């Protein structure tokens, strides 16, 4: 994991969605469907790869948090549990992408999560990423064409919202507002 000396800036949902949209567009342009099946679900594959990128990022963020030794035992327990969810999501998404003839995006060699100096920094980082992921899944749910993929995406969306809400609670943020994207 790489860090900078800048103050940590949680990734906003808009940034994640923007990045997702760019990646999706790039993915669709660069991958010319080789089979009818792939062509039919090219949009789904692009969405899945964006989602997979977010899962890789989340796993790395939790790794960074765990390795920082800044988390309390209870916080670490939550982080490990949530990271385990993201690993499950990663594996499911990878499986779908392969089955539908796509190439799963690999994790980046390093992620810039900014400077982490406290447990609160880590929780804020995780909350921002979880909210971004929840927004991305929510925004794209209706665009998925394949019902099997949609079936798999629904519980993932539920996990992201649960994670985001737990962190918002921990940070004393308002949890009565509706998620917007």
């Amino acid at each position, binding site marked *: 994991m790489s860090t900078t000396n800048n103050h940590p800036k949680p990734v906003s949902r808009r940034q994640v969605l923007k990045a997702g949209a760019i990646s999706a567009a790039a993915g669709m342009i660069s991958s010319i469907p080789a089979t009818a099946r792939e062509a039919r679900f090219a949009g789904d594959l692009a969405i899945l790869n964006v989602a997979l990128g977010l899962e890789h990022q989340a796993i790395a963020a939790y790794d960074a948090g765990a390795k920082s030794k800044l988390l309390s035992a209870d916080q670490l327990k939550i982080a490990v549990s949530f990271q385990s969810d993201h690993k499950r999501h990663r594996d499911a998404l990878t499986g779908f992408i392969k089955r539908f003839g796509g190439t799963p995006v690999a994790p980046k060699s390093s992620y810039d999560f900014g400077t982490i100096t406290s447990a609160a920094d880590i929780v804020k980082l995780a909350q921002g990423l979880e909210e971004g992921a929840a927004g991305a899944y929510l925004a794209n*749910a209706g665009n998925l064409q394949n019902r099997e993929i949609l079936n798999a995406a629904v519980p993932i969306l*539920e996990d992201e919202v649960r994670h985001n809400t737990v962190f918002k609670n921990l940070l004393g943020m308002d*949890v009565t507002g*509706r998620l917007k994207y």
Partner: protein
Amino acid sequence: MITEKREMHLVEPVLEDQKMRRDWFRLAATASAGAMIFLLTGNTKKLYAQSKEGDLGILTAALYLENEAVAAYQAGAESKLLSPGVLKVAVAFQSDHKYHRDGLSGVLKSFGVEPQGPEKKYDFGSLHSEKDILHLARDREHGAVLAYGTLASNILTKAVLNFGANVLVDEVRHRTVLNAALGIPNY
């Protein structure tokens, strides 16, 4: 009794709520437009047999759950057992369910179906403490998460699916908050 005036004070921002209501009705209009596209492209069999009937059944079931949730939070608020902080959350969550109810009703109307109202009376058992009410609400939210989570991928109309996903997100958030209040693990 949660009065509209009280709710306006407690659930902020009001303008956002009004905006969401407009979005709801826009969604209903979109659902109707989507149905029209199916009709115009000649795919009426698919619309009627797979999309409209199926989605109508899901919407009707969802509306029942929303009416029940609104009533459950009302029972909790009227019990006078809730502390101010919990009451505020309950009012906000009830407001979400009213929003869901109105949206589902709007979509049903756009399909030409008159939405069903709430039951005349709900049996929520004995409510003797704040914890009883939190459990009542948590169980309703849990049921709604399971229902929406199971039904979401069966919805064929895109606008309805988008709406259902937004409702599911609310239900998961509610359940997570209530779990935390009750000491039920969220991980």
